């Protein structure tokens, strides 16, 4: 871990004319630290489930995870409806959804293993096999593609020394192509584990990779990205715009 908090120039989109910090845009302080056992049951199935730390042998579910699982069950009229939340939770704990994991979830929800397999394989976010500590998903759909996403994808493959969809030898990276991540105004949008990196350009890729490897240069860019060198495209000066309130 680098000592200075890493800030990818595209950490949270182009903040444009707003004076905002990364924490403010991402809502980090607002969300705060969420208890493992889940807060209110209404929000118990909203925890990120693509994490760096993975324990493929962890039990399903125990301790705080068991508590959270029980909270989830209270929110739906059927047990089956808890299937996606349960798979999310299983991936959060184990890092991927193996056939054994599917069987265990099936058991917990009184469903057949075949049924759970059918559902789990339908959704792309469930890793059906182990992935690296950092799962890098580069959007190459139209809006990002227009702004150079293909080159960003290739840069990630090059700098992580992996092939598409494969995991690097040190198990640090898996790089895949993603469909539209709904960050089209901030191209190229890259999802790495549970967070978005936005406005990523080819030049920034080595820094992001170094940061993820834990030997980043601690580079901290300016808070406001009005500097044309940061964006792929220069930002035109405001023409008819009035001064916005601070």
């Amino acid at each position, binding site marked *: 871990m680098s000592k200075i908090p890493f800030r990818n120039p595209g950490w949270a989109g*182009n903040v*444009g*004319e*707003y004076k*905002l910090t990364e924490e*403010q*845009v991402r*809502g980090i302080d*607002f*969300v*705060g630290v969420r208890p493992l056992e889940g*807060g*209110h049951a*209404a*929000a118990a*199935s*909203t*925890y*990120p489930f*693509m994490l760096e730390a993975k324990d493929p042998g962890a039990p399903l579910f125990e301790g705080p995870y068991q508590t959270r699982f029980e909270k989830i069950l209270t*929110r739906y*009229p*059927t047990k*089956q*409806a808890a299937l*996606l*939340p349960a*798979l*999310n939770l299983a991936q959060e704990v184990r890092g991927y959804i193996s056939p054994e994991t599917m069987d265990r979830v099936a058991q917990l929800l009184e469903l057949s293993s075949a049924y759970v397999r*059918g*559902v789990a394989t*339908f*959704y*792309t*976010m*469930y890793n059906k096999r182990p992935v690296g500590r950092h799962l890098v998903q580069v959007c190459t*759909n*139209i*809006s990002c*593609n*227009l702004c150079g996403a293909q080159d960003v994808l290739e840069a990630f493959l090059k700098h992580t020394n992996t092939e598409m969809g494969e995991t690097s030898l040190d198990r640090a990276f898996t790089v895949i192509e993603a*469909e*539209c991540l*709904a*960050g*089209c*105004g*901030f*191209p190229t949008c890259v999802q790495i584990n*549970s*967070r978005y990196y936005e406005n990523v350009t080819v030049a920034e890729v080595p820094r992001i990779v170094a940061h993820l490897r834990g030997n980043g240069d601690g580079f901290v860019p300016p808070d406001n990205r009005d500097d044309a060198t940061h964006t792929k*495209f*220069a*930002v*035109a*000066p405001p023409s*008819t*715009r*009035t001064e*916005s309130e601070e």
Partner: protein
Amino acid sequence: MGYPYSHEKEVPIISEHFGDPEARTLEGWKARGGYEALKKALDMSPEDVVEIVKASGLRGRGGAGFPTGLKWSFMPKDKAKPHYLLCNADESEPGTFKDREVLRWVPHLLIEGCVIAAYAMGAEHVYIYCRGEFFEATQVLAKAVEDAYADGILGDDVLGSGQKIDVTVFAGAGAYICGEETGLMSSLEGRRGEPRVKPPFPAAVGAFGMPTTINNVETLAAIPPIVRNGGEWYRQWGTEESPGTKLFCVSGHVNRPGNYELPLGFPLKDLIYEVCCGMVEDRPLKAVIPGGSSVALLSAEEAENCSLSYEGVIEAGSMLGCASVIVMDETTDIVHQVARMASFYAHESCGQCTPCREGTAWVTTILKRIEDGRGTEDDLDTLVEVTDQMIGTTICVLSDSVAPPVQSSIEKFRDEYLALIRRGERVGAA
């Protein structure tokens, strides 16, 4: 105000507090007039709330543009069965990025809209289906929901009214098709996100077999201001057929991409050249997709006089969809971009219906072949023929969505296809 840029021509109703971290908190939201609309709604009869929404003329912001008040009125009045409201936050149409901004900047606006809507249609439980990738935005919403519960806004006795309304935040797991309303219901029930045949319509047999209404995030976020100010107030913007304001998501080759909230009927030309500060490096415009990847491309000439209302974009030869404006300049390789969109549909097809499962795959294969310089002129006819057979032949409209970009690009940019086919010449650097 839009995010990350604003413009003086904007009418910020939903986006008023975008970029303002204070607005996320419950206190901050209340200080900005939050939950006043809910109090007002709870003092009215549910029917009157529906009437206000009908009077506003608000149309569904998820793409189809169906009148919201009318949709709500389809819900049975009889309370023998539980009623559900589903909020569709599974934003994944390429080019669309408005719902995430609502979730992360004004979560309480969405919660307030959900509770008012639930009250209006007698729903006791609201499920907000967030797309799985939105981990951060979903957690902001989750925290806001927890705060709303702690404050008595949600739960067994909403603001002391005796009304019981619960909200549950659900996280999806990556499937475009779950943004289709019946696909979303399937997914919420713990199934593969496969759409269902309509009828029965969700208002009769929806989630868990119960009466259900599904509304987009932006639709529900527009409800509190409408209830607070009245239906007529909302009609001061927009056109007769498309009243109100809309978040326009602009991406591609413009200097200032982002979300802008503008009155419907705003000229596309002004959106690009004024609001978004023009094309990158002033390069000429080549094509615009006005409503996300499922609609027809507009040529630069067609874009010139296009008015961004539901009816205006149809007149120009495309559809407004969810107002996801993708701008392409002259360096764009149209064939490559269309092939990329087709492969998206092939990836996201749920596979239930043969015309879609086979059609998306073949269209992608043929387009890739053309892109690789191995195409023939007959391929263009084949593409039109295949996509024709994908319209109206399947359960949902994912299949239908492939035809407009493919057919319109062949019609309007035939030269580019022919150049690739005849001489292997490619436009742009892609």
